[in-house]
């Protein structure tokens, strides 16, 4: 704890710095290298940067929660276990996604160095998003992420498919950003603040203008639903997931989703987390419950009919959005109105990230020689052609389905248990719906395994493999970790629980700083024990 007080601001935001620096390096190198040379090594550079940032995150985790001494930074970023834990998940996803691109991009004739710079900037935005503690930081971080990903989605310039995806994503995404800004503006109008904790305080006072806040919350929710691809805000997802280069889709399914869930979960639980609002005046919890059910059904039923692996995974992503949203329902509230999260949300995001990288990794592997349409023919009989990749695919599918011994199973189990405990069985019906949906999803996940293992390779269209060590390594590592986390979940669960629980501290911590120089940390203090130690601002 002594060390924590001396940790400088620079050290605290070092993960952000490292990633930013790597992005700039990649950008500069891309400018000064010949056009036709192999750029894949930049992927390793950026991946190394992510790994380095991950080390920094682990180092900070031990000292968290940390407070920044610079005043403007102090209110902008909240470097607590929640932010760091999600950052770690994002970095793992980003690292593996960067590795999948190394040989995949050349196979798609789109090997440009700027790709890796954009990946780094997108990841930077994601990291800032889950750490942001006020609306403006949040917005800037989200836009940094979004704009980078728009460009990445259209990275395969010569493909009409890819450009169309980028265009659609950009247009609908801009619309969502506008909604987000509108939501921020209304919230500011109602409360006079852009800081999450101050919004919560303002809303608690009798002067608060609840109708205006209510409209603001609806707009924020709409932006949230768009970013995490929840029904009926999901329609862009299949087109964009399918059209974008697969390595980009991998990043979208993992990093973007984690960042959106993390950032918005913090926003809603800190700013609007009071039990009075959640189902009463600002009933975002009820809305989320309805949208979660809609997403599960829309995703799973549409996925049933898909023949294209990427498109199927897009609908599956929509369904998973539904499951993950349940975790936000489960957030328990203590007597004084502070809200925290159980381990479910973060753990599920970790498991989903790993399984998705494995699945999209294999989808990249089978798109050699510029195959764009990853339909059943593209991977039928994969088990005979390349048993390792078929196994990776099978593990990913089983985890997404939630079969025991995989991370997906523990994730689902944790979320369902949380929902039942947190709501005192009030939400039993929604868990039943989720379980029914899991059963529906078995049909299309298992069919992928069936096609890969039981069907024969089409003679007239043999499987086009991208032979790539980095790609196999990334997907294999993701599948392996899926199993490890599924077999030995306790550490990851404990860390997720700590991260979720740290949300409850943020309120107390914000109130506890008369002067920002008087920083202190409470690494070991339990959530409820961290009482204000100084006068309020």
């Amino acid at each position: 704890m002594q060390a924590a007080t001396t940790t400088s601001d620079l050290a605290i935001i070092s993960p952000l710095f490292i990633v930013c620096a790597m992005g700039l390096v990649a950008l500069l190198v891309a400018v000064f290298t010949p056009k036709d040379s192999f750029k894949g090594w930049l992927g390793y550079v950026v991946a190394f940067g992510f790994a380095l940032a991950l080390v920094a995150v682990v180092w900070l985790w031990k000292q968290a929660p940390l407070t920044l001494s610079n005043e403007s930074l102090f209110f902008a970023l909240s470097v607590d276990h929640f932010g760091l834990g999600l950052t770690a998940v994002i970095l793992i996803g980003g690292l593996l996604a960067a590795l999948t691109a190394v040989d995949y991009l050349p196979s798609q004739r789109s090997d440009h160095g700027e790709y890796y710079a954009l990946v780094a900037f997108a990841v930077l935005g994601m990291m800032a998003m889950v750490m942001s503690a006020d609306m403006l930081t949040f917005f800037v971080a989200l836009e940094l992420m979004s704009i980078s990903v728009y460009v990445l989605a259209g990275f395969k310039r010569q493909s009409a498919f890819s450009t169309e995806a980028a265009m659609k994503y950009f247009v609908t995404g801009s619309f969502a950003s506008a909604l987000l800004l509108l939501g921020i503006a209304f919230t500011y109008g109602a409360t006079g603040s852009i800081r999450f904790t101050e919004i919560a305080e303002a809303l608690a006072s009798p002067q608060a203008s609840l109708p205006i806040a209510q409209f603001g919350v609806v707009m924020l929710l709409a932006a949230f639903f768009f970013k995490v691809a929840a029904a009926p805000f999901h329609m862009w997802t299949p087109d964009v997931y399918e059209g974008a280069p697969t390595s980009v889709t991998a990043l979208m399914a993992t990093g973007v989703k984690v960042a959106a869930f993390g950032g918005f979960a913090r926003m809603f639980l800190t700013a609007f987390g009071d039990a009075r609002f959640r189902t009463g005046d600002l009933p975002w919890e009820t809305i989320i419950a309805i949208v979660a059910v809609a997403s599960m059904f829309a995703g799973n039923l549409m996925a049933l009919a898909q023949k294209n692996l990427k498109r199927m995974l897009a609908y599956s992503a929509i369904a998973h959005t539904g499951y993950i949203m349940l975790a936000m329902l489960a957030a328990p509230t203590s007597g004084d109105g502070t809200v925290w999260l159980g381990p479910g949300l973060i753990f599920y995001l970790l498991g989903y990230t790993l399984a998705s990288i494995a699945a999209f990794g294999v989808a990249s592997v089978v798109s050699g020689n510029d195959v764009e349409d990853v339909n059943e023919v593209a991977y039928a009989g994969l088990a005979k052609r390349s048993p390792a990749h078929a196994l990776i695919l099978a593990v990913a599918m089983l985890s997404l389905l939630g079969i025991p011994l995989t991370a997906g199973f523990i994730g689902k189990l944790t979320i369902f248990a949380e929902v039942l405990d947190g709501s005192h069985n009030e939400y039993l019906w929604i868990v039943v719906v989720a379980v029914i949906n899991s059963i529906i999803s078995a049909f299309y996940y298992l069919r992928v395994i069936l096609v890969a293992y039981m069907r024969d390779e089409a003679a007239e269209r043999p499987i086009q493999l991208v032979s790539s060590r980095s790609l196999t390594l990334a997907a294999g590592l993701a599948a392996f970790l899926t199993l490890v986390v599924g077999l030995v979940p306790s550490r990851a669960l404990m860390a997720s629980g700590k991260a979720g629980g740290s949300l409850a501290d943020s309120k107390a911590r914000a109130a506890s700083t008369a002067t920002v120089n008087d920083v202190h940390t409470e690494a070991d203090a339990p959530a409820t024990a961290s009482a204000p130690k100084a006068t309020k601002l």
Partner: protein
Amino acid sequence: MNEVEHLAHAAHESSLLPWIILLPLLGAILNGLFGKRYSQKTVSLIGVGSVVTAFVLSTLEVIRLAGLPEGDYLSVDLWRWFSAGELNVELSFMIDRLSAIMLMVVTGVGSLIHVFSTGYMKTDEGYARYFAYLNLFMFSMLLLILGKNLLVLFVGWEGVGLCSYLLIGFWFSDMEKAEAGQKAFITNRVGDLAFLIGTFILLFYSYGSLDFVGVGGAGGLPQTAAYLGDKAPGMLTLVCILFFIGATGKSAQIPLYVWLPDAMAGPTPVSALIHAATMVTAGVYMMARLNFMFALSDVAMTVVAVVGALTALFAATIGLVQNDIKKVLAYSTVSQIGFMVVSVGVGGFVGAIFHLMTHAFFKACLFLGSGSVIHALHHEQDIRKMGGLKAKLPVTRWTFLISCLAIAGIPFFAGFFSKDEILFFAATAHREGSNPMLFVYIVSVVAALCTAFYMFRLYFLTFEGKYRGDKHTWDHAHEEPVMNWPLIVLAGLATVGGFVGLPHFLHAHALEGWLEPIFGWLYEGEHAIFHVSHSAGLEIALMLGSVLIALLGIAFAWRLYMREKLPEAPVDAWWHKLLMNKYYVDEFYDAVLVRPLRATASFCHRVVDVRIIDGLFVRGSARLVGAVGDGLRFFQNGDVQAYVTAIVVGIAAILVVVEYLL
């Protein structure tokens, strides 16, 4: 608090223990993933080396265990596997005096069979795959015997079942062999289900852990068992019976024994390792491990004893007439495990473990011997086409003969001591206020008579007399040196292995002394449950009786197959047909279970799956989605304006809900 202090002992940390388990796993991973690229030599080195190293480490640990205060055990807690409520399940292992015996048998016999396999599988294409499976089996078996709690044991239990399935169906391109693997797997599922239900019941009553030993006598399964015995004896009996059903699956007892004879489809060293020496005895080990629970239930123990005795006799009678060398040995295994189960049932846990050990020696030797014969005769397994092989296969012949003497129960060979201990217990052990189960004793004695007969029938028909096969095969028959060494070692063990358990009247039963901290409480002290006769005269009389029985069996076989030189069965009578067809049990199961199940499955497939699920749900939903899609074509046709419209409609809907419905 229930009194289970008599089961409490201290634990000592062991750092070598994890390696004993991990080495075979490592071998399995290396050979399984990269085996195709390795040379045969490398594969052998990895496969055999990992198991032999595990054996050496095990020996070191067992020596260390022997130096500890009586009853203490070595253990290691790797990490918390999961916890739910108050229940903590750790991934932890232990070597106590009971698992030490299993550990030595499994790694020791396992090492020998790995060595033997390098010769037997030399020319097989799936050499690396074979060793990967075999190592994986060793890993699972070690999980099973070293698991400190019931769940780790169960993981091993399922693991060995899986490996057994993989190895029975090793030559899966042969449909019959693949089906044998499936039969084993499915039959075992029945037992495993019972095992699992039993585990769940114990979970429900558990005191925070499913460990086999409690901390300072409190917690763990002993306390759960004591509680159940006290408060809910009916439930305790149910749990014991469920676990016993689990054991009948894995250890091939009535009614689930049917898979084991078919399991002989696998490579012969596999039959020796898995289906004779180690895996099939797992049920006996499990019951011995749970002795504190079984001993409390009189009803369950009686069931165990009766089923064991019936299995012993039933399988032995089928063994009398079989003509496939491995089938005879398979039924013999079923029968011998029946003896072990009898021993558990009458309270002779030491005898069960003793016979488990000696049986591992002589039966592994017999199977490897049969492997040597089959290898020499180019995969001929029919004993009617053998004979006179002692000239060609001298080492195999002598080791086989020694093992036959051991299994028949001829004095001073290993089987003599262990079988006599079982019979002695069956004849005299009883609970307070009840009598010994004489029925069980008599049935067992008849089974012993049959054993001596069929084993020597097998020996005479294979090695003595004249060769009855074709000349070409005879000319090429020879032994592999690398395969002889394991045979010699095992035959040696089958000769002297019994001396660790000398008869009681000599008061030099080393094994009983070794296991005293685990089973001693059953016979002596305030918690004692079983009473055994201490009469030396009775013991000697019983012993002489069983020697006579054994000699009678051998003499009978000699008369029929040596003097009268009958290669075929003596008579063509109804009972012979009945035995040849194994009492028509397979046909019975087929008619009563398999066919109705198939019919149901077929119904489910045709109606439920094809019509309802595929037709209504999958195609129906696809059609529905298609229909809806047709309607919404203007949305999902890639028109961005439509997507944005959907968003706006969504927001409007939310606003309506917020404003008017809530």
